[in-house]
C-alpha cells in the first residue's frame, strides 16, 4: 500500500478519531450535552464578534508581510557579522515580521543560533517569534481586554531582550561551531526592487485598519433595572438573553464580582460617554476610509502578479489558522463545562506569586497551537482567574510549549533548553504579578 504516505495516515487517524468520539460519546450525560452547547456557543461568539473585524484583516496582513517584506534585509542584522546590540533589538521585535507562521520560527532560530549572531539573539528571536504574532496580539486585546493585549505586546518585546541576554550571559564560555557557508538567495524573497518604505507603509495602513476595526468597546453603561435599582456596570459578556455585568466605579476600576443578569429584568441601558466609546461607535467609518485607501494603493503600487501572490499567501494562512482557531475554540468550549469553577478561582483567582507561577506552567504545557491560548485564557478568566496570572499564561505559553521544547532541545541541547524554559517561566511569573498589582 505504497499510496499510504504519512499525510494519508494522518487523514486516516483523523477519521478514526472522529469515529471513536462519535461512537462512544455519552450523549445522555447532561454534562456532555451542556458541553456541546457551550462549544457551539463559544464558537458562535467568536464567529459573530471577532472573525470579521479581527481575524480576517489580520490574515491579509500576515499574507502581505510574507509576500512584500523582504526577509533578507532583516536577516542581515541577525547574521554572522552583525552588530550585537542591533541584533538583540532586531531579534526581539522582528518576530512579528519574520515569523508569522509558528512553524517558521524554529528553522529561523536554528539558523540564527548556528550561523548567525549567536545564542543571545537567537533566543530573543525564539521567544519573540511566537509571542509577537500580529493576529495573536490583536485577538488578545479584543477578547481578553485592551490592557492585557498591550501588556502582552510590550511584555513580549521586553522579555525577548531579557531572555536573549540572559542566555548569552549564562553560556558565554561556550564556543559554538559556526557553519561557515551561508547561502544567501540570489534573488530577493519578495519581489525585488520594491522600495521597503512602500511595503512598510502599506502594511502599516492595514494594521491601522485593524486597530479601528478591532477597536475596544469599553462597554461601560448605566443600567436601570425594572425593579428601580440602577448602577454603573461594565458589560463583560452578552448572550441571547443574559448580560454579564461587573460593577464599575467612577475611577475606572472594577469593584466586585461579575454577575449574570437577565435582559428581561433590565429597563434601560445608557452607555457612559467617553472618547473610547465614541470611536467605537464610528469605528467602521474610520476603518472604511482607511480600507479604501489601502485598496487604491494596492492597485497603484503592486502588479497583478504581486497582488495574486499576496492573496495566495493570505489564503494559505487562512487554511492554516482558521481550523486551528475554530477547532481550538470548540474543544475549549466543550471542556470548559467539565472544569469546576471553584478550582480555577482557588488556584489562580488571586494575584499571588504562586498563582502566577502556576498559570505560566499551565500556559507552557497546555499550549499546543497558535492562537489556542486565547480561548483557553478567556474561559479561565470567566471562571475567576485573575488578570495577573492570565498575562503570565500568555507570556509563557507560546514560547515554551511542549512541541517547541522538543525541537529546541534538538538544536541547543537539554541544558540550554532547560535554562531557556526556566527563565521564561520566572519572567512570566514576575511580570504577571506586577501587571496584576497595577491593574487591580
Amino acid at each position, binding site marked *: 500500500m505504497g499510496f499510504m504516505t504519512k*499525510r494519508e495516515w494522518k487523514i486516516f487517524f483523523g477519521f478514526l478519531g472522529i469515529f471513536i468520539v462519535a461512537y462512544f460519546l455519552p450523549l445522555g450525560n447532561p454534562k456532555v450535552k451542556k458541553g456541546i452547547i457551550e462549544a457551539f456557543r463559544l464558537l458562535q461568539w467568536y464567529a459573530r464578534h471577532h472573525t470579521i473585524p479581527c481575524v480576517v484583516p489580520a490574515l491579509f496582513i500576515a499574507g502581505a508581510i510574507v509576500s512584500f517584506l523582504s*526577509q533578507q534585509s532583516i536577516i542581515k542584522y541577525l547574521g554572522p557579522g552583525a552588530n550585537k546590540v542591533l541584533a538583540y533589538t532586531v531579534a526581539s521585535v522582528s518576530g512579528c515580521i519574520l515569523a508569522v*507562521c509558528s*512553524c517558521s520560527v*524554529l528553522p529561523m532560530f536554528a539558523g540564527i543560533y548556528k550561523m548567525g549572531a549567536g545564542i543571545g539573539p537567537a533566543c530573543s528571536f525564539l521567544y519573540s517569534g511566537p509571542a509577537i504574532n500580529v493576529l495573536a496580539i490583536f485577538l488578545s486585546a479584543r477578547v481578553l481586554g485592551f490592557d492585557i493585549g498591550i501588556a502582552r505586546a510590550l511584555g513580549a518585546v521586553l522579555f525577548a531582550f531579557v531572555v536573549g541576554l540572559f542566555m548569552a550571559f549564562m553560556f558565554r564560555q561556550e564556543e559554538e561551531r559556526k557553519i561557515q557557508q551561508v547561502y544567501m538567495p540570489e534573488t530577493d*524573497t519578495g519581489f525585488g526592487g520594491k522600495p521597503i518604505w512602500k511595503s512598510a507603509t502599506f502594511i502599516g495602513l492595514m494594521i491601522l485598519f485593524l486597530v479601528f476595526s478591532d477597536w475596544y468597546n469599553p462597554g461601560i453603561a448605566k443600567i436601570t433595572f425594572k425593579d428601580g435599582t440602577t448602577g454603573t456596570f461594565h458589560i463583560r459578556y452578552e448572550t441571547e438573553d443574559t448580560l454579564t455585568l461587573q460593577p464599575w466605579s467612577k475611577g475606572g476600576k472594577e469593584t466586585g464580582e461579575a454577575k449574570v443578569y437577565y435582559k428581561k429584568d433590565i429597563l434601560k441601558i445608557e452607555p457612559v460617554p467617553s472618547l473610547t466609546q465614541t470611536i467605537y461607535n464610528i469605528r467602521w467609518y474610520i476603518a472604511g476610509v482607511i480600507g479604501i485607501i489601502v485598496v487604491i494603493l494596492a492597485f497603484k503600487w503592486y502588479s497583478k502578479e504581486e497582488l495574486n501572490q499576496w492573496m*495566495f499567501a493570505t489564503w494559505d494562512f487562512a487554511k492554516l489558522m482558521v481550523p486551528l482557531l475554530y477547532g481550538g475554540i470548540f474543544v475549549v468550549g466543550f471542556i470548559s463545562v467539565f472544569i469546576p469553577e471553584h478550582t480555577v478561582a482557588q488556584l489562580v483567582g488571586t494575584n499571588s506569586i504562586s498563582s502566577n507561577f502556576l498559570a505560566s506552567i499551565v500556559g507552557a504545557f497546555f499550549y499546543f497551537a497558535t492562537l489556542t491560548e486565547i480561548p483557553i485564557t478567556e474561559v479561565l478568566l470567566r471562571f475567576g482567574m485573575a488578570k495577573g496570572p492570565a498575562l503570565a499564561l500568555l507570556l509563557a505559553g507560546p514560547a515554551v510549549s511542549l512541541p517547541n521544547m522538543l525541537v529546541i532541545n534538538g538544536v541547543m541541547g537539554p541544558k540550554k533548553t532547560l535554562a531557556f524554559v526556566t527563565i521564561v517561566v520566572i519572567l512570566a511569573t514576575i511580570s504577571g504579578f506586577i501587571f496584576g498589582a497595577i491593574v487591580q
Partner: protein
Amino acid sequence: MEIKVLGPGCPRCEATERNVIEALSELGISANVEKVKDINQIASYGVFGTPALVIDGQVKCVGRIPTKEEIKKWLQEKNK
C-alpha cells in the same frame, strides 16, 4: 536536477512540495525531489526561514510558498 524542499513538516512545506511536483510534471521535466525535515540540516543550508526551495544547490525561495508559475520559471531557467 536536484530539488530540495526544506521544511519541518508543516502544511506550508507540503504545499511547496506539491507545487514543485506539479510544476515538474506540467513541464515534463524529471528531477530528484527531496524533502529535508531535520531542523539542523535545514539550518546547514544557510537558510533562515521555511519553507525554502533549493534547485541544484541554489537557494531560490525562502520563507514563503512559491507559486507553481514561479517554480516553472526557475525550472525553465535551469534547463536552458
